[in-house]
């Protein structure tokens, strides 16, 4: 039982991190119809920038500066890149962000090298927050929860209380109307894209020392974030939130479950023998296929509910 409690908290931390990434992606997609493939690359960039800044100024300035830099980069990408290919259609925009993945990936390797960075949790947050039945919950994870909850609140306030937020909301529910709005649509596009990148950068800052800051982190995170967005339903922020938490929990719990399907079948009198693909599939412990579960879930939801959990429209 004690393990479950701690793991729920851990799952929540990871889920909120996923949501920070996925929400930016969803906002950009809803507004512009573009899926930003480079989103996870911005996340990686956020982590690297935070590492470098924290070496000179410390962690907390980095927490502010790195996301802003990522947001500025996002604005630049939108103004000088996406806007130019916009008239060639969505596929061109997708291809453009796909190309960015390559370039950012390589630039990061060229600037910081191939080895993992020594980006560590700041000493002021490096202590166990509380102890539950002998298991520690690090203060830094509590801090991550705090930051992501703050971000959630901030985004919510922005969407509800500001003019640009209202425009974005309108675009979320009535995508075809967004283009017909008399507002400065290019400016709204830039803002949304920059905002999404800012969130990704923030996720990178707090995720970089929670996981490891290394050149493969974008490739590891990217597919999971896309799975979250598809699973939650393209364009739905609520679905995106639920999916983030579900997948965060599943990924966290999978690691500690040492049972396989065969173990479930055993009480029913089914005993597996032999060494075939089927028995391998059934006897592999859940812990080993943790990385596979979100992908399987995505395929499953596509089979039974092609629009995702809360999706209301096709792309």
């Amino acid at each position, binding site marked *: 039982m004690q393990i479950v409690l701690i793991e729920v908290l851990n799952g929540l931390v990871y889920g909120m991190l996923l949501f920070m990434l996925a929400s930016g992606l969803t906002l950009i997609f809803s507004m512009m119809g573009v*899926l930003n493939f480079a989103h996870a690359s911005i996340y990686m960039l956020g982590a690297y920038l935070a590492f470098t800044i924290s070496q000179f100024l410390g962690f907390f300035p980095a927490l502010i500066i790195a996301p802003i830099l990522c947001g500025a980069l996002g604005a630049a990408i939108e103004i000088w890149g996406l806007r130019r*290919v916009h008239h060639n259609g969505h596929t061109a925009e997708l291809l453009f962000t796909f190309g960015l993945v390559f370039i950012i990936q390589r630039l990061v390797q060229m600037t910081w090298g191939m080895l993992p960075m020594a980006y560590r949790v700041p000493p002021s947050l490096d202590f166990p927050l509380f102890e539950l039945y002998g298991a520690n919950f690090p203060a830094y994870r509590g801090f991550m929860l705090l930051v992501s909850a703050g971000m959630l609140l901030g985004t919510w306030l922005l969407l509800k209380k500001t003019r640009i937020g209202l425009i974005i909301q309108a675009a979320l529910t009535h995508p075809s109307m967004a283009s017909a709005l008399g507002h400065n649509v290019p400016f709204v596009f830039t803002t949304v894209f920059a905002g999404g990148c800012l969130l990704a950068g923030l996720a990178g800052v707090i995720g970089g020392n929670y996981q490891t800051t290394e050149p493969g982190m974008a490739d590891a995170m990217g597919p999971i974030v896309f799975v979250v967005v598809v699973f939650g339903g*393209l364009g739905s922020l609520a679905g995106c939130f639920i999916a983030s938490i579900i997948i965060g929990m599943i990924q966290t719990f999978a690691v500690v479950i040492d049972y396989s399907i065969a173990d479930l079948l055993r009480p029913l009198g089914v005993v597996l023998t032999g060494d075939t693909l089927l028995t391998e599939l059934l006897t592999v412990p859940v812990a080993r296929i943790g990385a596979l579960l979100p992908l399987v879930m995505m395929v499953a939801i596509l089979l039974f509910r092609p629009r995702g959990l809360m999706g209301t429209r096709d792309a």
Partner: protein
Amino acid sequence: MKYRWLILALIVVAIALPWCFYDWTHHRQAGFLISMLSQMGMMVILALSYNMLLGQAGLFSLCHATFFGMGGYATIHFLNGAGDGTLPVPMELMPLLAGLSGLGVAILFGSMATKQRATAFAMITLGIGELMATSALMFHHFFGGEGGVTTNRMIDNSLFGLSYASGLQVYYLILAWTVIAAALMYFLTLTPLGRMANATRDNFERAQFIGYDPRMVRFMQFALSGFFAGIGGGLYAITYEIVTYDALASSLSANALLMAYIGGTTVFGGPILGAILITLLQSGVSLLSNSWLVYVGVMFISMVIFAPTGLAGIIKTHGPIRQAGRLRLLVVPYLRLTIPSLGVLLGFVGLVELMSFLTIGAAQGKKLVLFGGPVDVHAALPWAISGICLLVGGVWLRFEAAGFHRVWESLSAEVRR
């Protein structure tokens, strides 16, 4: 068939090339060349089959390597079966079985992915690609886990009595299948399905109101493209006698996209050009530079922004001017573009190489060697020279490009009249 002679010439070159570099004094084949040509053959099939989706049906797929890889894994098992005598299929027909394996997998995944189009389709295929790549690392049956699966291609069953012991024989097998697959894919563009794939790409809604179900068109095109990708994978398995996770990893899917797009998706032969070019770069530049992927990435992005029709598309736009006999008027403007372009190229390559040697190169203990001499990456001079090259070249290029654009516009206007 306007390009009959070009195609014929290409095939003759492909047949003759290994003998042009034959080492007559030692009676040895040029191994590096043959393995590069073999790689090209597979990549041509992969890129062409990818373009059945991207160029012809407007589908941006990110799991194309899945079908290539599954064709490869299946072929390893087929070859093992043939080796112990349980599968009496001659070597020459193995790629066909590989194609059918690719087709089967494509039917399975296509039935899910092709329900959607555009962005949603791209994301679903991304998920499918990751699913298969992750599975390949995890399961030992069929995929062999991280080590992959191996075989021996000398199955002693050939229609022509060949042993396939040498790389050259395998290369000719690849060449034959590449020609067959390319011809079949070209044929497909001239059938009702091929045309309706174009139609759903341009306007899926209209396609519905002339009686076609766009989902079905997408599905069939997807399945068929999986078939051809499977053939490519089969040839891969036969060549290397080992198939690992790399054959269905997302980086190979990305490669298929790069080859097709850079070569040109609007012309049937574009992906062939792209596959040859990228394979050359891969085997040439990757030996010289750590950062060849940066160059490919930048090339790709520039094409997306400035030349969405790809290289073949650029060549094709010269057609009307050539027919009017005015092509030589473009020689001087092109030459004027060359010098600033070289400047930009030099500056950019210089900066990228300096930067990568500062980090990656240093970690590998290599030294940057440019123009025959070692370069100190910590000195200011090489950085300054590269930077100036890039800046001056860039400004100059903008100026020249505007001039080129004027000449081009007036020429095309003249030709149109």
